[in-house]
């Protein structure tokens, strides 16, 4: 079949069962947009900024596990997309992002809207392509989708010069893929698995350290089953919230900088750590020389370079987590006595009783933690929760009762303010029957505020809850703790009227100062069927606690802040 490069893009997306593309047009990608206009296989959603297109595709991917797709034009369209690519890359999210490029003959001439896009994206994507001939396009697009979703997932960037989008060539979309060089390992080595099980059987104080890999691998059921059979307590990273389910008695909570006391103590006192797809981020480990220093470590990861990158590993297992845990379960049933760890579980339970996750509620002002707990009580598993970045993000991770994987979408690795609203849109487009909440801050929400227009136009009814502390709160907190309260450039008391702002776009706004108003606003927002913004005036100086100061040790958390 002879097709133009642009038609090939459409055909490839059809073959990949893509149902929605987020994007923003411009000169270099107009040929593709012309074909978008003529087709009805997928819906194209025009965001109002390229960064948001990538985040929306990312939110779609996180909510579903499928590859998110976005289109952007060359030059500034592409550079605007870079933060989105980096965000997805850091959190291993599968995307295919297609950018226009100036015609091949003009590459290298500093042409209008020319930028070395593959040069820029190289360090923040799993792989990228500059397409030089339309006859390569079907293979490249097939590979792009395959690379994005296989192995350790990640974004793939395909840069297509304008003349290639017009070029006619033979198109036949490969039904199978065979790459000479790229072959991810899915099955764990049985000998390593056997050794790991023996190590667990020999341990007295094992702990499961669960990371985002458990979500990417869709391994939550297996991980829960494994934990149950073994009776091993578990901690989750920020990326893994929802894997165990908060009602699970074996879940201690989130660990790390703002993790709970018992989770961090479990890591510090464990004699064996069973790491299921985490990456030992510095926000999790604190000071490395003190991190889990009594523990032998089993690390299961599909990315060999992740194993041993930060800490030496005693039992490395390269493979897909779901596969590996499936293989571990029958061995665990034979060899591991859940009773054996009872004293250890009791000890950790006591730790949790001594220093539970807590906050001081108030009758005068809404505490941000209360707002999150309240949404949890009212919506629980009915809502998918997105966040921006800052204090509100940490409180959401701490206080929302997550019960299943992919219920929690947050930028962990890059910590991208402005992620929340577009990602929530992507999730809502993917799951129209779910309530999608974006917990955001008065700082973050302004970083992609233009997306209210996209949400209104496309009737994407996400509910933004601004925990408005009139501060870049997380930075303000560090200034309070570590910079003698010199609040350099963090005071946001000059703000827009958020209610009028959202209403000017055609959404609904609510200003909330009391608990009663909060419930009412949430209820009205749920009924409204359109994009909403609930501006919740919260205690300005609330701090996220407990806290492991950067470079501190997990067992030495700051439990409260005293002036």
């Amino acid at each position: 079949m002879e097709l133009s490069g642009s038609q090939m893009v459409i055909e490839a997306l059809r073959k990949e069962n893509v149902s929605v593309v987020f994007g923003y047009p411009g000169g270099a990608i107009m040929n593709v947009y012309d074909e978008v206009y003529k087709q009805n296989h997928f819906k194209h959603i025009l965001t109002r900024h390229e960064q948001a297109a990538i985040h929306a595709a990312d939110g779609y991917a996180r909510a579903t596990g499928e590859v998110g797709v976005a289109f952007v034009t060359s030059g500034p369209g592409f550079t605007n997309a870079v933060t989105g690519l980096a965000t997805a890359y850091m959190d291993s999210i599968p995307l295919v992002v297609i950018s226009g490029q100036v015609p091949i003959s003009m590459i290298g001439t500093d042409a209008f809207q020319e930028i070395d896009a593959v040069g820029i994206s190289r360090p923040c994507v799993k792989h990228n392509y500059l397409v030089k001939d339309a006859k390569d396009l079907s293979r490249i697009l097939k590979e792009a989708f395959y690379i994005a979703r296989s192995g350790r997932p990640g974004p793939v960037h395909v840069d297509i010069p304008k003349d290639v989008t017009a070029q006619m060539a033979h198109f036949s979309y490969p039904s199978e893929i065979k790459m000479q060089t790229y072959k991810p390992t899915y099955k764990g080595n049985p000998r390593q698995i056997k050794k790991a099980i023996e190590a667990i059987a020999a341990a007295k104080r094992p702990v499961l350290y669960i990371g985002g890999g458990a979500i990417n691998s869709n391994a939550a059921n297996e991980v829960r089953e494994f934990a149950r059979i073994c009776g091993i307590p578990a901690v989750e990273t920020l990326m893994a919230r929802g894997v165990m389910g908060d009602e699970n008695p074996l879940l201690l909570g989130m660990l790390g900088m703002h993790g709970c006391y018992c989770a961090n103590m479990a890591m510090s006192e464990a004699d064996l750590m069973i790491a299921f797809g985490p990456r030992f981020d510095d926000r999790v480990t604190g000071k490395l020389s003190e991190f889990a220093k009594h523990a032998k470590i089993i690390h299961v990861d599909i990315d060999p370079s992740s194993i041993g990158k930060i800490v030496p590993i005693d039992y490395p297992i390269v493979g897909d987590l779901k596969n590996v845990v499936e293989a571990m379960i029958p061995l665990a049933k034979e060899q591991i006595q859940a009773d054996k760890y009872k004293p250890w579980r009791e000890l950790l339970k006591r730790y949790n009783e001594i220093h539970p996750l807590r906050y001081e509620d108030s009758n005068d002002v809404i505490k941000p933690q209360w707002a999150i707990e309240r949404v949890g009580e009212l919506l629980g598993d009915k809502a998918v929760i997105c966040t921006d970045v800052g204090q509100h993000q940490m409180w959401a991770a701490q206080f929302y009762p997550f019960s299943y994987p992919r219920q929690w979408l947050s930028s962990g690795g890059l910590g991208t303010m402005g992620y929340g609203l577009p990602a929530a849109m992507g999730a809502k487009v993917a799951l129209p029957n779910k309530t999608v909440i974006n917990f955001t801050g008065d700082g973050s929400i302004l970083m992609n505020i233009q997306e209210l227009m996209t949400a209104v136009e496309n009737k994407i009814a996400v509910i933004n809850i601004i925990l408005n502390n009139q501060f870049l709160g997380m930075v303000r907190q560090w200034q309070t703790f570590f910079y003698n309260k010199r609040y350099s450039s963090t005071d946001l008391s000059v703000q827009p009227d958020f209610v009028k702002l959202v209403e000017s776009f055609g959404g609904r706004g609510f200003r909330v100062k009391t608990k009663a108003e909060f419930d009412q606003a949430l209820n009205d927002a749920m009924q409204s069927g359109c994009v909403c913004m609930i501006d919740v005036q919260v205690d300005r100086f609330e701090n996220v606690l407990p806290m492991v100061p950067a470079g501190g040790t997990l067992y030495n958390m700051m439990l409260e802040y005293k002036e």
Partner: protein
Amino acid sequence: MDAIRRVLSVIVLNEDGVLSRISGLFAGRGYNIDSLTVAPIPKTNLSRLTIVTSGSTAVLEQIVKQLHKLIPTYKVIESGEFVEKELALVKIPLSEDFNGLDAMLKAYNGTIASSSEESIVLMVADDYNRIDSFLKAVKKYNPTDIVRSGSVAMDL
């Protein structure tokens, strides 16, 4: 921790941009490149890079894993025995006193690769540390230019 010198032979798909992926990986992650040579492998779609790098054991392990992780990487040969050779060209003005040069060239299996009205160019191919000592010895002839190729290696 002391930096260990390591020779890596990396086989990659011979496609656009592959060298920038590799050099970008080293630059971006702060790894050393002491030398790097590339050439296509005859009758294949592959190229071979010989990279001489250095770092702690942990860093070297990461370098190998990160190289493997690049999509176009076919193989990373890191251990075992290598024949490793490097080539050096040295330009010496004709005005110099060449006393003893012949003997030195002989000792290093060197040749005179070219000569002009002003200078001669010496060529030596040998182990990198022998090249080092040759370049030290040749200093007394006041070379005006020195070019080293970087190591090429073949696993045995």
